[in-house]
């Protein structure tokens, strides 16, 4: 008979609700589990911390009158190598805790658990092939923890789980993130710390529900511009990476926590960034855009129209210049939240355009130029905890 045991620290995933743990106490004969009619009910099987290496499915079935009564499986901190496929008979399961075991494989029958919301698999031996393709059918899954495994890829199945709210993939060996994050529009917490990720794809900007993004302990040098679209982002962890400067878009975010420690952030002004001399095509393009000379695909070839439309604005707010392929990387120190100077990476139209604008404009028209943060913007970061 399973008895409810108090959780130990290592399977603690946040505020623990004492009400979820009760001793087995059966006294009803009903076939269907009408749990609400009982004052004390058991919907949990707790086999955690028992040093078991194999789960006896018959024992599991014997421990409960009706498998459909069971909502919660606590199987963490054992030595399980696998779990039996008959787990599919526990159709009411909403939570399966399998952390701290020795799992190398998972049965595809797990995907038949249509009520599964929380799947904890941290600290096992799962590699990319261990997650069955059928997992993508777990459309109602909200929390998945695959931290401390042997994944080399971001599991593709996760992109099909449209109800995911929290994804934990810390301490794996992921090197690459596919550009498929646009489906994860409900994810609020994305933990990718402790991998070997070298690049964050643009589609991360589509994760409009994201509140916490942890990219610490990776090999990142830049972030995509689309990061500025994460309007709900409150906590951004970038510590232990390879950032030498930060994209200015970070200023647009409404962050409360930003961690930057252990990055080779530039301390003093750097003058040695290279500048490729612009082509004749680029110089012409710049002149056309700056003087607002009208053009269309009847006057010039379509490819040139597309080229002219791809012009990017110089980041010096006083400069109305544009650039195409040839830009000057400049590092400007910004007084972030009135406390610390952060080096922000700017793309300027020419090396001369560091303080005084290269292209002055007297027209009252205003382009949509990126702005270095004004006093107003820095005020809103006063509560940011930097470290």
């Amino acid at each position, binding site marked *: 008979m399973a008895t409810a045991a108090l959780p130990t*620290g290592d399977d603690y995933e946040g*505020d623990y609700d004492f009400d979820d743990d009760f001793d087995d106490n059966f006294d009803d004969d009903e076939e269907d589990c009408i749990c609400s009619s009982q004052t004390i009910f058991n919907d949990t099987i707790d086999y955690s911390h028992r040093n078991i290496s194999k789960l006896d499915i018959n024992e599991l079935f014997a421990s409960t009158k009706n498998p459909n009564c069971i909502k919660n499986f606590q199987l963490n901190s054992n030595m399980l190598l696998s779990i039996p496929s008959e787990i599919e008979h526990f159709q009411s399961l909403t939570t399966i805790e399998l952390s701290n075991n020795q799992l190398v494989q998972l049965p595809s029958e797990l995907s038949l658990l249509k009520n599964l919301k929380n799947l904890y698999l941290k600290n096992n031996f799962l590699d990319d092939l261990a997650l069955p393709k059928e997992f993508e059918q777990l459309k109602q899954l909200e929390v998945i923890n695959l931290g401390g495994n042997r994944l080399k890829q971001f599991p593709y199945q996760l992109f099909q789980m449209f109800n995911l709210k929290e994804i934990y993939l810390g301490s794996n060996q992921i090197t690459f993130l596919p550009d498929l994050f646009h489906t994860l529009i409900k994810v609020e917490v994305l933990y990718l*710390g*402790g991998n070997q990720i070298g690049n964050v794809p643009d589609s991360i900007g589509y994760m409009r529900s994201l509140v916490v993004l942890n990219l610490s302990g990776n090999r990142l040098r830049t972030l995509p511009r689309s990061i500025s679209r994460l309007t709900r982002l409150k*906590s951004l*962890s970038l510590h232990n990476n390879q950032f030498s400067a930060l994209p200015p878009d970070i200023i647009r975010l409404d962050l409360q926590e930003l*961690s930057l420690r252990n990055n080779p952030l530039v301390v003093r002004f750097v003058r040695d960034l290279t500048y490729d001399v612009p082509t004749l095509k680029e110089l012409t393009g710049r002149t056309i855009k700056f003087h607002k000379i009208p053009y269309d695909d009847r006057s010039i070839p379509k490819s040139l129209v597309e080229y002219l439309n791809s012009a990017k604005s110089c980041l010096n707010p006083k400069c109305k210049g544009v650039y195409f392929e040839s830009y000057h990387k400049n590092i400007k120190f910004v007084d972030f939240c009135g406390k610390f100077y952060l080096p922000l990476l700017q793309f300027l139209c020419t090396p001369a355009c560091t303080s005084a604008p290269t292209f002055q404009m007297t027209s009252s028209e205003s382009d949509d130029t990126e702005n270095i943060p004004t006093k107003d913007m820095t005020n809103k970061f006063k509560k940011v905890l930097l*470290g």
Partner: protein
Amino acid sequence: MTEALVNTYTNTNDIQLIRMEYVDKTAHLSTQPNSLNELIDLIYQAFATNDVDIDYVSTIMNNYKGNMKEWLPYMKFQPNKYTRNLVNGGNGKFNLMILCWAEGQGSSIHDHTNSHCFMKCLQGSLIETKYAWPNDENKEEQMRIISRTELKEGQVTYINDTIGLHRVENPSHTDTCATLHLYVPPYSQCNIFDERTGRTNEAHVTFYSKGGQLTKNE
């Protein structure tokens, strides 16, 4: 059975009696707190006067074993930031609190506003990086690391402003960490430091919960 109990009472220091007499000298106090409440009692005893016996406090913090059941009301993890959960306000003489560090969370570099700070790792492990005070407050330079040590479960570390500054972080990307902190006297403000420049700023410290109840912050 009764005889065995009697022997226990006479062989070890009788904590109940001592509490009645309010003896200040820590030599008569137990050095083996068997529960969180007992630890709190011993701390009250130790601070009955204004003198702080650092060695004694260090000893009882080290010897206190405790268990998850005692800490549960204060174990409140948040995905965005570490939490400070007050266990006992010490009548203004000290603050005992449990800090909860979720995966990868860490603190800024900070000082301790002239207080003694004892830190015990209850669960998981922690990295403590000690820094030297910036040399010249008018000159910007990278702060110097004095030491970087791992604090394992059960271990206790001590710091005050004369020793230096420190940063504390949970290095694990998969496991949470909980620490027990004792501050004598308590403080509500401290200074935080920018590692790359040594620039400093004041910070107001708050509690996520007190006595197990969530506070309404900011």
